[in-house]
């Protein structure tokens, strides 16, 4: 990475950090024959031989995470994660440098049409959440900053982290906010707050309540309306060729995503679990070459493993197949690797990394066909799909996941801020039990704030569960 790509603006601090973390991860992964930090002489030694401009980045990053990515089985996916983080944020920085209007949007809105308007779209939630994934300190400082303004702690850290960074000027203030009405009031209210606090226009895209033709027609209207609003606000227009280019990237990305999803049906399960949070968050890059590269790399890694019937758990352990009926915890990716190593427990699906196969390919013939296809895909984006309408969608998706991925335990690590989830949690576990006989293990977490259910506590809960089996 060319360090001249780094901006010296304070509001690029977080973006710079992500770029540098990506690069630093790749530096470590380049070293052959190394499978842990200890092999390199331990953290102090590593810090010592890193180029000076990366030493402070090293201080930020979670050491257990670095140990996990150096393991042989995790290297390929780790390279994809760090490469993607570096390239994507480098792109974002470059585009922002070029003075293009900056849009922050809800993560479950596919951004192709915004790239095609020559805007710079970044998922608002990712700006905070990726700190949780990479850093020892996570995004807790952002969360606390927002709460210090008097806002309740039952809001979702997906937004409060990023909003806190906005308040402290660590991420760029967007020129426009684009939000959709799903999933919830908690996320919506933070957009309302940010819009009013920073005087940023807010463009709303309604998520239709019904997964049918009428709903789809409405979504098409809404995407078109958003494009018109963005044109009015930024003066930029939608370019057909650009749209086609970005949709081709996302078509490729989604098709690899779905192929990878198919592989999760296999026994042994060939996809390592540690990178699930990135699998969701890097959907934000849909429309860029990076997202296609990311899911392609993951797919190829899993496919290679599947072809030789390899597994991600130690030899001799019995494979246990978990589905996460909510999702992952961003702050402890090593936890998912630990589950594999310690318990032979693999990570099949969760609500944030499941896309139904019919989300498929967008027809690139014309602007009209592309918008229609993008509108349908918008209705299938993770979390959006399961919260737009009736809870049946969430529940039935998990019956499908449990059956298709041959799950033997449904783990509901329920996000404390998700009122939707908690109001349907028993309907979910009951239906899964009824249709598949699979039991549920349930506990509370905050997906982005490690203080709520710290890593050791999660391990204790899982140890207890497996010991009682």
């Amino acid at each position, binding site marked *: 990475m060319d360090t001249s790509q780094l901006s010296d603006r304070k509001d690029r601090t977080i973006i710079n950090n992500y770029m540098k973390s990506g690069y630093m991860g790749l530096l470590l992964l380049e070293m052959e024959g190394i499978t842990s930090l200890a092999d390199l002489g331990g953290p102090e030694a590593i810090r010592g031989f890193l180029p000076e401009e990366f030493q402070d980045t090293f201080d930020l990053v979670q050491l257990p995470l670095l140990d996990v990515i150096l393991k042989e089985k995790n290297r390929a996916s780790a390279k994809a994660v760090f490469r993607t983080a570096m390239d994507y944020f480098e792109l974002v920085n470059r585009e922002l440098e070029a003075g293009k209007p900056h849009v922050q949007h809800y993560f479950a809105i596919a951004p192709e049409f915004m790239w095609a308007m020559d805007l710079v779209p970044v998922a608002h939630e990712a700006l905070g959440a990726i700190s949780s994934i990479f850093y020892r300190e996570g995004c807790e400082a952002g969360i606390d900053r927002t709460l210090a*303004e*008097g*806002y*309740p702690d*039952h*809001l979702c850290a997906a937004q409060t982290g990023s909003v806190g960074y906005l308040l402290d000027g660590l991420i760029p203030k967007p020129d426009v906010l684009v*939000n959709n*009405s799903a*999933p*919830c*009031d*908690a996320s*919506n*209210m*933070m*957009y*309302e*707050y940010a*819009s*009013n606090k920073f005087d940023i226009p*807010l463009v*709303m895209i*309604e998520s239709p*309540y019904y997964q049918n033709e009428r709903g789809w027609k*409405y979504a098409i*209207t*809404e995407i078109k*309306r958003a494009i018109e609003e963005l044109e009015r606000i930024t003066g930029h227009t939608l370019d057909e060729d650009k749209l086609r280019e970005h949709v081709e990237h996302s078509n490729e990305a989604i098709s690899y995503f779905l192929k990878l999803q198919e592989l999760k049906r296999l026994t042994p399960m060939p996809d390592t679990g540690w990178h699930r949070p990135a699998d969701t968050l890097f959907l934000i890059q849909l429309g860029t070459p990076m997202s296609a590269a990311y899911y392609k790399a993951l797919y190829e890694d899993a496919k290679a493993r599947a072809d030789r019937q390899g597994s991600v758990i130690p030899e001799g352990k019995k494979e246990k197949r978990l589905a996460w009926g909510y999702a992952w915890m961003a702050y402890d990716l090593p936890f998912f690797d630990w589950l594999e190593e310690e318990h032979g427990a693999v990570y099949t699906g969760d609500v944030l990394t499941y896309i139904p196969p019919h989300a498929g390919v967008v027809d690139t013939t014309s602007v009209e066909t592309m918008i229609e296809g993008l509108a349908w895909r918008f209705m299938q984006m993770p979390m959006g799909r399961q*919260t737009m309408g*009736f*809870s*049946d969608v969430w529940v039935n998706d998990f019956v499908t996941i449990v059956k298709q991925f041959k799950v033997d335990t449904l783990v509901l690590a*329920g996000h*404390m*801020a*998700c*009122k*939707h989830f*908690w*109001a*349907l*949690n*028993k*309907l979910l576990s009951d239906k899964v039990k009824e249709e598949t006989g699979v039991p549920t293990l349930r506990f509370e977490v905050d997906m982005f704030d490690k203080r709520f259910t710290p890593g050791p506590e999660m391990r204790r809960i899982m140890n207890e569960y497996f010991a009682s089996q």
Partner: protein
Amino acid sequence: MSAFAELLALPSRGENPYLQEWKKEAGRVVGVTCTYAPEEIIAASGLLPYRMEARGVTDTGLADVYFHRFNCTFPRSVLQAGLAGEYDFLDGFCVLNGCEQIRRLYEVWEKHVNTDYQYMITIPHSISDAGLAWYKEEIFNFKEDLGKNFGIRCTNEDLWKAIKVYNESRRLVQELYALRKDDSVPITGSDAARLLFSAFIMPREKYNALLKEALEEIRSKDGTDDYKARILVGGAALDDPQLLEIIEGQGGMVVTDTLCFGSRSFGSLIEEDGDDPLHAIAKHYYNRNPCPRMLGQFKNRLGYTEEMAQGARVDGVILEKIVFCDSHGVDTTMLADGLEEKGMPAMVLEREYALSDLGRLKTRVEAFMERIARG
């Protein structure tokens, strides 16, 4: 018993005499969860709308099997009443996606409470022409589905008639609010609230007749100016006078509000001069003074709050929110900050749906009164 006394003390659910009478005459009742519900359509279809409440429900043990401690106690309490059989009188239940928690009531209710007919009306989270078109189609579908299910016809004429009745309520309630604008106030805020709550749980024509009489009685009363401060109450769903009694017990006089059971339901009329009653209904409900669940409307809502506060010459604003309500959880603080910036004292008060920990509430209100008491 005078009309005023009757409306002040009208019982809810099973004990409600109007409900009992209605059911005895083979009338059918459709529950609704939110002020975006077009009650006129239900009434025009010959059914009785009943705004769901859970007054008196203090323990949510049955509901908490399905909901969780992170969920708002309002849907939990309504579900509790449902599971305990207190809503067995319902023939239908119309849920709206007013907020994400109340709408999640739909599926649990469908599976575990015995109401024959259920319907979901969905409303967009922002104001636009496309959104109005969606909402209008939703309520049209609702009207048709009601008709099919209950074997009734609902004509345009029926709709206009219902609109007239509901507009009459709105006019009468506006008169009630007008009586509270002077220093000398003939009715406390908690009593005024009781009068309004009754509107939602009895046939609206009968209510109008009673309210009209009650207004006469109120007008004949001597007002009082023996209070420390004039208060506007805003915030989350409030369908029980207890919190207002606490405020008034500490010397406040609640003279107006921006509540959905209050001014937001009665503050503006449906236009009666068009061709299409369904369009008039849709426009009214969709565009009406919005709840924070409607995005992009904060400035309007702040403006509305200021207007109501100024109109009633208020000394301070109390914004209450139910624990775990995300919409009001954020909005009350945004509003309070906005009001304070403009020089209007405002406080945010957290509560559960069924009040508990009254000592804390009293203390906080008392402190606010000390700050804003009129010289």
